[in-house]
């Protein structure tokens, strides 16, 4: 039997010290720690986090301290003889009861914070948040929970940056084409749900996170105190582009928000007006490409070739070159049970007309037809 001198004791002490220091370092270095955030809730959560962290650090120091004391002093190489005790009822009761008390003390503030978080009533405004593979839809609801207007919020980082073909911007992967906008100092209530799989909506600075579950509604609220842009991400694995569906919220002064709100309402009316217009083929192609780039590339790719076999190629595809109404229907209703969504709920008729037209004439597809908003309306009506 070999006995080893442990000259490594010093090392171990250093290693442990480093660990504990790192843990303690958390408290001082902000960028290493959980953000304090900009809501009352996020601050309580931060406090809970710090209390429990310190409780653990202190218990760690006591426990590991005792252990290292023993490792250093009670070694055979130092001639230490083994004692033979193996029980001490009082001690054992003590170290059952003391942790229990610490835990109860911890549970008290945790409970009160949680109760606060669950207080969803008394809101000033309500927004529906709906997860899609892989983007968010925000709808501003009136008092009767009717949508006044809504929009999609999609990742804005260009693909070139993923593949290191161009330099990454400051907000790489955390930027969207249109953020959710809310007024500050107002209780905003969110109704979360999903269209396809489970997503999760998270803004670290607000201290809130909740799953968006298809067919189920979750409620969440926040009161943001400072204007600014707050960034988060989808935090539930939702398929291929789970890493690419950021949540961006812009909190605004009330006046700014009102002004923005008014323009959005107006845009909504204009969008409706477009549905009765007739476009030229060039206009259709241009608008179609825009819609396609925003909504379809993630699956069917910019060159239309998709990622077979999961995401079919549209180049020369029987749908994109065959019966036009079937094509429109496919885009309106999606294909249930696949990630091909029902875009009827997301896009206006003008947009659907444009993208269908685009798909039928891009990448060498050359269907002989033109698709106008009214055609989409007809197909929808005829279903």
């Amino acid at each position: 039997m070999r006995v080893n001198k442990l000259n490594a004791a010093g090392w171990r002490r250093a290693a442990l010290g480093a660990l504990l220091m790192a843990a303690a370092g958390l408290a001082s270095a902000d960028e290493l720690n959980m953000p304090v955030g900009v809501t009352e809730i996020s601050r309580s959560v931060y406090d809970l986090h710090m209390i429990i962290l310190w409780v653990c650090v202190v218990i760690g120091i006591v426990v590991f301290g005792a252990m290292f004391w023993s490792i250093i002093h009670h070694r055979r190489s130092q001639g230490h003889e083994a004692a033979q005790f193996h029980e001490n009822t009082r001690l054992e009761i003590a170290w059952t009861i003391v942790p229990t008390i610490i835990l109860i003390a911890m549970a008290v503030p945790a409970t009160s914070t949680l109760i606060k978080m669950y207080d969803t009533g008394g809101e000033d405004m309500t927004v529906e948040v709906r997860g899609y593979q892989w983007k968010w839809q925000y709808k501003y609801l009136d008092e009767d929970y009717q949508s006044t207007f809504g929009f999609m919020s999609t990742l804005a980082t260009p693909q070139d940056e993923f593949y290191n073909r161009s330099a990454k911007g400051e907000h790489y992967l955390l930027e969207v084409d249109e953020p959710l906008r809310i007024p500050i100092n107002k209780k905003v209530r969110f109704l979360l749900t999903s269209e396809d799989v489970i997503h999760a909506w998270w803004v670290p600075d607000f201290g809130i996170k909740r799953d968006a579950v298809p067919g189920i509604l979750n409620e969440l609220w926040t009161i943001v105190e400072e204007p600014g842009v707050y960034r988060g991400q989808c935090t539930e694995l939702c398929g291929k582009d789970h890493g690419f569906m950021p949540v961006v919220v812009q909190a605004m002064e009330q006046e700014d928000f009102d002004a923005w709100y008014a323009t959005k309402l107006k845009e909504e009316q204009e969008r409706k007006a477009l549905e009765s217009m007739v476009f030229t083929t060039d206009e259709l192609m241009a608008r179609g490409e825009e819609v396609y780039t925003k909504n379809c590339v993630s699956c069917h790719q910019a060159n239309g070739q998709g990622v077979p076999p999961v995401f079919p190629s549209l180049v020369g595809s029987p749908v994109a070159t065959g019966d036009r109404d079937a094509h429109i229907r496919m885009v309106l209703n999606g294909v249930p049970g696949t990630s091909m969504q029902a875009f009827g709920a997301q896009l206006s008729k003008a947009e659907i007309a444009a993208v269908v037209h685009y798909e039928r004439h891009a990448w060498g597809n050359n269907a002989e037809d033109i698709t106008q908003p009214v055609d989409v309306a007809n197909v929808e009506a005829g279903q």
Partner: protein
Amino acid sequence: MANAKADPSIYFVPHNGWYPVVVALGAMLMVTGFGSYLNDVKGGGDGSWVQFYTGLTILAVTLFFWFAKVIEENSQGLANAQLKRSYVWGMGWFIFSEVMFFAAFFGALFYARVFAVSWLGGEGGKAMTGDYLWPDFSAEWPVMQNPDNALFQGPDQSMASPGIANWFAPVYLPFLNTVLLLASSVTVHFAHTAIKNQDRTKLITWLGITLVLGFAFLFFQVEEYIHAYQELGLTLSSGIYGSTFYILTGFHGFHVTMGAFILTIQFFRALKGHFKPDDCFGFEAASWYWHFVDVVWVCLFIFVYIL
């Protein structure tokens, strides 16, 4: 590997054997064959059962040899009392694991009824779900109209009990099945007593009656399914009611089939004169399994049909 002499103080450890590996191979072929069949059908193909049946045959034949070997060893006196205790522990805890398997499905039923359906119907802790997303759906059990009735067409009628008064004429099938299965549990117990009394005629008679009752149960269960599919419009895709109904009764029916099969084997062993009062583990294991299946049915009858 016949043993020269059997020593009851020795725990018999079989030397080696080809059965287990081949059973594993058969199981693998069987499940992947079934998987390919399912995927093929889902993709619009016809599917082939060949691999599934190959695996099943390998599995069944090997298990036959395996158990025959164990029975042979036992008849040579190699299995001492301690080994038999191992079998008893083994079977007992296997049944416990089966209980937990059913627990998963009962858990699903419970969760769906108490939580999911109420929330979707706009009641309880998450009433907003129903109010906002499914305004047309109202919570009731059995669920006859699903939240999205276009995607999952609800059943026309459910299997719920029509009240005790209506159990008899015309006879309410689940009730009849309860009687059959409870009776079979009693008869299998009589068969066991017959072994203890070394009365082979009685054993064969009672076991035979048990089998008849068991197969009758299965027959009526199939009847019930046909009735549900053809007349009640209650199918696997009728929403959560159909889902829980079929998975619970189906999984139970599968267990009754297995139990009846095992009892049939015991029946043939009885005919060959296999069991002795102190040496009838195969029979006892089969009968415990049968009692277990019976208890599960009673729970089913209460939670699926009556409540």
